[in-house]
């Protein structure tokens, strides 16, 4: 086959549908660009709100915005920038670059990418619509209770935030799962962890942090929405709840989120900087170690946002030390970057200006972070403009500067053209000067005592010139950002054509075409070094010539290499879905659910939920040997490539479900934390009375579930061991046992005398029941679908991959059941007896 024929056939399989069919696109290049463009659109809305804030505060006693509108504006500014801009844009950048850097053609769950995008888009539009309607949330971006509760925020603003942002978080978690599995399982053959591009280490850490960090906020949002809509008093001290529980759950997410934002940006720096220094990173292993350490320690800092709420001094000291410790791995990264620059021959091209800006601003922000980690200092400046200045130094310095540097660096990849150095320099100067003009002085405003979130102030307080200067700086900053946007738009028309690999980079994305092809690589090379394009520059020609692996496309499937997670050894071929309407349809129905909950149409919400569940299961039907995926053929063993994953016991779905269960487990552990917290720490907390929950019913229910799970395990192991002719009947038995378990569990819940609106512990107990019922129900329905798939020939004694995929879910369901029985039912009784 000629080169042209190969590319024609590849494009036929991988290109999006034309016209409206683009809405069914699942390709990572298309989806990630949508993430980034949508994020940038939200960013400019956020900037507009920031300019309103700065105009209002420019002079004392201004009346441009009244107190209520001002509260809506600052809440939406924070919400948009954190949830609708920073995370999605970085995820979009990661989704765009990671497959290209690791030498694969797409992410491993393309439909999940598209679903995540639509959840983000619809969730973002729902949140934004509240601003247009003048009923936006106004309790601040961290929505502290009781201010965000029904009593003090009776309008729908808080509901918009809770439901819309939860919707957006589904998108973030799905991207986290997607990126984790893709990085671990689809690297080009030979690309061991030690040879992986440093950017992918950062993204792997970020993805796993999303998986563990977002669920606490998802739980908190569900609890607060239940409190607002159904009067379940999770955060009401009068009923044994505690507003501080919200703060704990929020910051359990919120502090790691700072690093979720920072790490990918630092990954950009670690990728770009060696290219312009003309040498490899000075300490690759040091950086990897720093990234891993930062990822963990960042989960032990959340209480430093709560130093002023009355937490015991010893606990404050733990978190104070941990907050200072996290500066160590961050400092290691800074020293590695400096050593790389020091020992290299640096070229100061446009992206490097932004990297230098990042180094200066982020180090300043890091230093004020260490100051804030000191409890007495934090007490002095808590909730003042000093804190605002600090986190803008960290977030704009730590994220926006590298992001713009990345934009300029990868622009030739996106468009095939280089940006304008002249306009770019001016934009950088305006942004750098404007940023420091705005926020450097704001430290002083805070030290002089100006609290955040006040809509005006009086002249005699001495903050006039500082605020005016900050406002002028803010407009200079905004002008610079508009200039960046202008430069980027103009470059598509006037930018000079870029040569292949224009910056002389070492990573594989520059071999994917400029702009990249829909399939990235016509053939997949074996990787022997950490710097493939420096050591084998010929890859830029040999990859599109089809000289490497997986170059056959006659079968018409979208295929990736599946490699071993550590060594990068080639194991299987992953066949992935082509374009699909299911992501859009399912996300649209879930948006309908969101709107029905917002409008309190609960009966409608039940119907929409059932529809969404049916559609999601229908989506899952198109897998394995389904005709739209990889149907069985007569010549399965003729290929010279490794076997298709659905013909083995190890594929992306198995890894996907395990990472998904990690996220689910984080949500469940947050629930257990809430239960124990309300019991032991809440001001009116007392030993929960669980005597109304029937222990015999719970134990019998658990026995049925245990038997069902053991039988499922037996089926899975026998199939792995060579076959089990009676596994179809056994699967029916598993379902029957679990239905008995479910019936008893629901009976135990209904029969217990839970005081849902007057006792916080009982309300948490109900959430626990709902959680267990959801998981058991999902396991049963999924297994029943498997019995159906057996009849259709998609599962058999030799095609048992799907049985293995579901096995971790069964184990998990069993695990959470018994942990719940012990911690929710038996532990309080045991404690009382002791």
């Amino acid at each position: 086959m000629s080169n042209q024929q190969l590319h024609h056939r590849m494009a036929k399989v991988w290109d999006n549908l034309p016209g409206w069919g683009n809405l069914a696109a699942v390709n990572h290049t298309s989806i990630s660009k949508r993430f980034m463009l949508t994020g940038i659109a939200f960013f400019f809305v956020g900037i507009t709100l920031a300019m309103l804030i700065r105009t209002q505060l420019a002079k004392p006693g201004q009346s441009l915005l009244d107190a209520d509108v001002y509260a809506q504006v600052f809440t939406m500014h924070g919400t948009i920038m954190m949830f609708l801009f920073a995370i999605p844009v970085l995820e979009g950048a990661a989704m765009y670059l990671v497959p290209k850097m690791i030498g694969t053609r797409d992410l491993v769950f393309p439909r999940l990418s598209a679903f995540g995008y639509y959840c983000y888009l619809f969730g973002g539009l729902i949140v934004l619509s509240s601003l247009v309607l003048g009923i936006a949330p106004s309790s601040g971006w961290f929505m502290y209770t009781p201010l965000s509760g029904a009593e003090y925020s009776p309008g729908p603003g808080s509901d918009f935030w809770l439901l819309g942002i939860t919707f957006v978080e589904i998108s973030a978690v799905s991207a986290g799962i997607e990126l984790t599995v893709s990085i671990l399982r689809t690297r080009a053959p030979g690309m061991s962890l030690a040879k992986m591009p440093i950017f992918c280490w950062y993204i792997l850490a970020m993805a796993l942090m999303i998986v563990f960090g977002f669920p606490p906020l998802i739980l908190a949002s569900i609890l607060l929405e239940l409190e607002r809509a159904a009067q379940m008093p999770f955060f009401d001290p009068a009923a044994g709840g505690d507003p501080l529980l919200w703060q704990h759950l929020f910051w359990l997410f919120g502090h790691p989120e700072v690093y979720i934002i920072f790490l990918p940006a630092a990954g950009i720096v670690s990728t770009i900087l060696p290219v312009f220094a003309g040498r490899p990173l000075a300490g690759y292993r040091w950086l990897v170690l720093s990234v891993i350490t930062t990822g963990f320690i960042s989960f032990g800092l959340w209480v430093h946002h709560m130093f002023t709420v009355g937490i015991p001094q010893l606990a404050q000291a733990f978190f104070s030390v941990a907050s200072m410790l996290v500066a160590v791995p961050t400092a290691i990264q800074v020293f590695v970057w400096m050593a790389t620059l020091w020992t290299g021959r640096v070229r100061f091209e446009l992206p490097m200006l932004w990297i230098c800006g990042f180094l200066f601003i982020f180090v300043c922000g890091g230093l004020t972070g260490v100051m804030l980690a000191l409890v007495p200092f934090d007490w002095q400046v808590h909730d003042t403009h000093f804190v605002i200045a600090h986190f803008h130094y960290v977030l704009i310095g730590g994220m926006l500067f590298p992001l713009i540097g990345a934009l300029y660096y990868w622009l030739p990849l996106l468009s095939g053209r280089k940006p304008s150095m002249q306009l770019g320099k001016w934009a950088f100067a305006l942004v750098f000067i404007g940023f420091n003009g705005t926020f450097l002085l704001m430290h002083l405003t805070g030290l002089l005592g100006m609290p955040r979130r006040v809509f005006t102030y009086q002249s005699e307080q001495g903050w006039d010139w500082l605020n005016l200067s900050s406002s002028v700086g803010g407009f200079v900053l905004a002008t610079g950002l508009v200039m960046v946007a202008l430069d980027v738009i103009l470059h598509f028309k006037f930018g000079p054509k870029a040569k292949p690999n224009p910056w002389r980079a070492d990573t594989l994305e520059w071999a994917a075409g400029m702009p990249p092809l829909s399939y990235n690589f016509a053939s997949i090379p074996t990787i022997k070094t950490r710097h493939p394009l420096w050591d084998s520059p010929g890859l830029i020609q040999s990859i599109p010539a089809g000289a490497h692996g997986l170059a056959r496309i006659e079968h018409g499937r979208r295929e990736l290499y599946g490699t071993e997670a550590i060594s990068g050894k080639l194991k299987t071929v992953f066949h992935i879905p082509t374009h699909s309407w299911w992501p859009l349809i399912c996300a649209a129905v879930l948006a309908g659910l969101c709107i029905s909950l917002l409008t309190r149409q609960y009966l409608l919400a039940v119907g929409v939920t059932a529809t969404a569940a049916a559609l999601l299961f229908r989506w899952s039907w198109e897998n394995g040997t389904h005709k739209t995926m990889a149907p069985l053929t007569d010549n399965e063993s003729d290929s010279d490539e490794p076997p298709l994953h659905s013909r083995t016991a190890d594929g992306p779905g198995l890894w996907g479900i395990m990472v998904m269960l990690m996220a689910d487990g984080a949500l469940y552990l947050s629930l257990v934390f809430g239960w124990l917290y309300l019991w032991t720490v809440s001001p009116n907390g007392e030993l929960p009375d669980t005597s109304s929950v029937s222990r015999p019913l719970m134990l019998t229910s658990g026995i049925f579930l245990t038997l069902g799970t053991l039988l499922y395990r037996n089926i899975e192991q026998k199939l792995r061991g060579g076959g089990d002719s009676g596994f179809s009947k056994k699967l029916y038995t598993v379902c029957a046992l679990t239905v008995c378990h479910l019936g008893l569990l629901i009976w135990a819940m209904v029969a217990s005398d839970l005081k849902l609106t007057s006792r916080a512990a009982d309300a948490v107990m109900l959430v626990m029941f709902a959680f267990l019922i959801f998981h058991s129900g999902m396991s049963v329905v999924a297994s029943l679908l498997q019995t159906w798939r057996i009849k259709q020939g998609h599962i058999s004694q030799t095609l048992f991959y799907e049985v293995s995929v579901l096995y971790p879910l069964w184990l998990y369901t069993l695990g959470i059941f018994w942990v719940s029985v012990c911690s929710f039912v038996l532990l309080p009784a045991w404690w009382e007896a002791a």
Partner: protein
Amino acid sequence: MKPVNYSAWHLVTGLIVWAVWFIVVYAGAALGCQWAPPSPAAGALNWINLTLLGVSAVTAGYLGYCAWLSWQMKRSATGHGRFTLSLAAGGYLAASVATVAIALPLLGIPPCM
């Protein structure tokens, strides 16, 4: 059996142990104060702090031992094993240092005030 081998899990095992220790110490102090709070006037060396210091010393010692062992094994390892063990040694050492640093306040601050 040696607590360290060539598995990539050791890239994160040290920090997972640290995370569990952190939860035990934070929750342990809260539960101890709920169950039998010592008087703040009695100072920092009470049953809660001493118990938590003991747990911390054992944890930090174990992590330090694993760091040393990883480093020793790394010397004779090649390829992926060498990469994994050098990072594992760093991870264990970082976890050990973090344990010691965060446990230091137990020497000076009473738990229930």
